[in-house]
């Protein structure tokens, strides 16, 4: 990931030499969030942020960490069940947005006779199968190719924490995101964390004390942009308190 900090404002044209130079097989340029194509061949930005490019994938996008979550196909999210209507659950991805549909049969091993029953305000970990500007998002809790759950489904126990969208992206990006705290803690205590791309982090530490300590620590990393050394110090503090 090439990251030179090019700050862009909405309406800025991205010049040809700032766009990625394809090194892989893929020849068509992929535009990510924050960029739009104005025919015939102008690439303009729509939001303020930093331009990021990937030469191997021949992709360009704008890095930003503010605003509301916008559903995108393929994203893993923690949705709140609001109620059940007909063949599907109505789920909320963020407050005051149109509900997303989660079909009753989109669970591992669910049939017409054994469909899951969720009371309102249940949290489910789901993948977005379709999200367009012209339709409400649709969710699923099974991998379409295998029919297995693969960790998707109801999130039990523990507690949900709010984190920024950028933090959620970093946590899902693995080692590139630079979040080392969970691994450091994992060597000493057992816990489970679930990260939704819509800015919700679910922590189950077994006890209330552990859940809160881990959740708060991760929120602190988000707010104060802690680096690896600071995270190590924080992890030691958390372990001491448990």
């Amino acid at each position, binding site marked *: 990931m090439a990251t030179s900090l090019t700050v862009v404002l*909405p*309406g*800025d044209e991205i010049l040809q030499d700032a766009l990625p130079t394809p090194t892989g097989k893929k020849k068509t340029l992929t535009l990510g969030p924050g960029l739009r194509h104005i025919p015939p061949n102008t690439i303009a930005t729509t939001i*303020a*942020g*930093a331009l990021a490019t990937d030469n191997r994938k021949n992709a360009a996008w704008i890095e930003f960490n503010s605003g*509301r979550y916008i559903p995108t196909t393929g994203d893993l999210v923690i949705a709140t069940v609001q109620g059940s209507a007909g063949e599907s659950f109505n789920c909320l991805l963020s407050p005051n947005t149109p509900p997303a549909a989660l079909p009753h049969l989109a669970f591992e091993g669910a049939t017409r006779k054994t469909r899951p029953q969720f009371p309102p305000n249940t949290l489910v970990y789901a993948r977005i199968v379709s999200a367009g500007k012209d339709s409400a998002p649709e969710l699923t809790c099974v991998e379409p190719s295998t029919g297995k759950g693969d960790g998707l489904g109801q999130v039990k126990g523990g507690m949900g924490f709010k984190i920024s969208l950028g933090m959620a992206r970093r946590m899902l990006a693995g080692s590139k995101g630079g979040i080392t705290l969970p691994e450091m803690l994992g060597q000493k205590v057992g816990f489970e964390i679930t990260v939704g791309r819509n800015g919700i982090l679910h922590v189950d530490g077994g006890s209330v004390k552990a859940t809160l300590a881990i959740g708060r620590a991760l929120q602190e990393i988000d707010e104060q942009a802690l680096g690896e050394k600071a995270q190590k110090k924080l992890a030691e503090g958390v372990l001491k308190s448990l």
Partner: protein
Amino acid sequence: MAPEAILSHLHRADGSATYTHNGYCVIGAVNGPIEVQRRDEMPEEATVEVNVRPAVGVGSPKERHLETLLHNTLRSIILTRSIPRTLVQITLQVRSLPEEEISTGVNTTLTLLPHILHTALLALLSASIPLSTVLTSTLIAIPSAPNARPATPLVSPTAPELLRAKPIRSVHVFAFAGDGRMLLNESDGVFSFEEWDEAAEAAEEVCCKEEGGVGLGEGVDVDGKEGTNLEIWLREVVKRKVELEQRWKSAR
């Protein structure tokens, strides 16, 4: 003096900004894209809702007028077609006005307008609402000339400056898009076309980056005294926002 701006400081709103300049202070908050009420829903566009709240008391026709002006200007820069059937809600709370505001004798709607426009834009940027371009805006006041010689227009005058230059013959507010197109013009008072033209030129000089001039990062002195070009200022503000968001990359 360049305006001061703080971005994304309200944690409950999707985007927010506080803007302080020449004794004016405005807080802006943006929520969106959110679910729109059925009767306001438009099939192919986003609905934009602007609420202006005055520093004292409840809203009056003056605020409704400002809301209309803002609504029309912002609708033209928000990419409403990329987020159809949603609502973008913009709330602007005027926090303080300069003491001399009432006694300047000019239209107080116009003196407030550029500040409120900037606040709305910054809050929209903070909320990452898709925009087609940015805008910059300024106030130009033309004092009445006592002895037949043409008066020099005051660019972005402070309230005490307006008071000293009294009587003011006309005031103009201009807003320009990032590419230099004029987005909004509101004028009040008695003026000739030549005067308006001169005011428009003076405003363009402050609002837009000079063509083929100095590079982005360098501070350009407009007239040697004002020292702030609004587009350069805007880039500075956004740069600070981006640096704050990306600081984890260099954190240790």
